[in-house]
């Protein structure tokens, strides 16, 4: 008789179809064939995890057709099952997995759109803190380079492909021209959670760099320097007003140890 740990390992590999089914003599199922019953567990695991991926990547499903998505998802689940039971974290590796699929090698925008969808899923699972307004700091001397803390759900994603255009086109129910938005045009996207939905905006290089620096805690001076290096006409005041207007600022602090960058 197998020790329980070995038995469970063997069963898990059977359920994931990594190894042949376990020996029928180990199992009982009334008058039924126990191996046929074991396939119910295989099906439950595959179908429930496929449903998880389809919920996270709805636009990707539409881009590649549901039947193909299900096929790819089955392979992904078999090779990369969840490592933990918190399924909100399952699917992080799926965009990268899509890049390895030969059939999709001439459609890199599929994996890139999946990357955007995963980023949206991450944002939707992040906290939404009360936003601060600019007027709160009217009479506060914050020094030359305060730390500006942004919403934890803010994500910044850059792609060589027009991922936001593709994603937006698939938000409407109307039939769309599948290839009209598949252009190789870099897009920089900021997205964050707003209640139970997500807001997405396109940014230019300077504003993207500005928000990127702030998100990583590098301070206002560093963020402004990065933005100006990319665009000498960068408008700091407009960028700050927009940041507050988007509800992205959660706190402004004087740094305890000014950064030397």
């Amino acid at each position: 008789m197998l020790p329980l740990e070995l038995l469970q390992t063997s069963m898990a590999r059977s359920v994931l179809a990594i190894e042949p089914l376990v020996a029928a003599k180990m199992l009982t199922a009334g008058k039924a064939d126990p191996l046929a019953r074991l396939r119910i567990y295989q099906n439950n695991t595959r179908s429930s995890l496929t449903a998880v991926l389809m919920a996270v990547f709805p636009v990707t499903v539409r881009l590649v057709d549901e039947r193909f998505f299900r096929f790819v998802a089955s392979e992904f689940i078999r090779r990369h099952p969840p490592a933990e039971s918190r399924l909100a974290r399952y699917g992080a590796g799926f965009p990268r997995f899509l890049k390895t699929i030969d059939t999709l090698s001439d459609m890199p925008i599929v994996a890139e759109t999946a990357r955007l969808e995963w980023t949206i899923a991450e944002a939707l699972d992040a906290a939404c803190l009360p936003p601060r307004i600019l007027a709160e700091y009217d009479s506060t001397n914050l020094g030359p380079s305060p730390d500006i803390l942004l919403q934890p759900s803010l994500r910044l994603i850059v792609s060589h492909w027009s991922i936001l255009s593709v994603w937006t086109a698939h938000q409407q129910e109307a039939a769309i021209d599948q290839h009209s938005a598949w252009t190789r045009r870099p897009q920089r996207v900021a997205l964050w959670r707003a209640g139970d939905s997500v807001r997405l905006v396109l940014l230019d290089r300077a504003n993207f760099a500005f928000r990127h620096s702030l998100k990583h805690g590098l301070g206002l001076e560093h963020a402004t320097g990065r933005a100006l290096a990319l665009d000498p006409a960068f408008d700091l005041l407009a960028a700050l007003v927009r940041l507050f207007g988007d509800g992205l600022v959660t706190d402004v602090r004087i740094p305890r140890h000014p950064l030397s960058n």
Partner: protein
Amino acid sequence: MTRAFQSLAIPATAGIGLRSPHIKEMLSRRPSAGWLEVHAENYMGDGAGVDALEKLRETYPLSVHGVGLSLGSARGVDHDHLQRLRKVCERFQPDLVSEHLAWSVADGAYLNDLLPLRYDEEALAIVARNVETVQDTLKRRVLIENLSAYIAFADSSMNEAEFLAELVERTGCGLLLDVNNVQVSAHNLQYDAEAFIDTLPGDSIGEIHLAGHATNQVGADTVLIDDHGSRVPPVVWTLYQHAISRLGPRPTLIEWDTDVPVLDVLLGEAMWADMLSASIMFNRKQAARQTAAARPRPKPPLVSFENEAGTGMPVLAAFAAAKAGPAMPLALPPIQGEYHAAA
């Protein structure tokens, strides 16, 4: 982040599983539902659902039901996941916490399904250790739910009910009796569903689950699939009646996870559970009164409708009177717990 909630005890009436399509309506309507149960894993992040549950927790008693601890894993429970469960409990301060007698993690993979154990001394020692770890970490008693199964292990040395009874004895945990799971497993593995319930230590059962299942035909095999995708079927109501007749009223949850219907359907199913439970308790009271009355002097066969108006369920008194006293056993075992009329 943690806020103090008023302590709200879960009553021995029916509640519903909170599902995402219903959250907005629950927040706006605040319908009369005895209590709510949520899956712990859905509230381990910081998404909008967490904000909503904090609001609902102010109004409704809450049960947190884990689906991912894998209490049956030979390698023990995942420490990180247990800490996440602890944080969920600290955040929402539920009245009940439950998990499953199952395993879902092995070989570094989470299978997103609940697999049965080989019921033997080795597994009992492992599960008891894992349950004790969970109870020590959460600093509370947890309820352990029986499983719906499609297979069993030939080398099991006891059945699932005996295993659960021994687990209660060793760990002091409570039990969550999923009546639908009993029906599904009893059919699939061909054992007596009522005998399963009768084997469990009744005083330890702190909650009951009700749900629907699907019936699949695979060749000559008719297999019941625990899909939580339909109304509670008559055979499960009958088994529920058996359980309540033995146990008395218990907090009873309507579970619905696939093809989730409109909220009113769940609330309607909860109402039926309350009605059935109240009806059973009413009949027991009637029978007990008749037995007592029969000793000094005979009573008329029909019960006075007016006499029962104080139960809060006059319709049941009328119903019972119209039935003209069904045959009830004269000696009924005492039932612990208060009678709760449906709200």
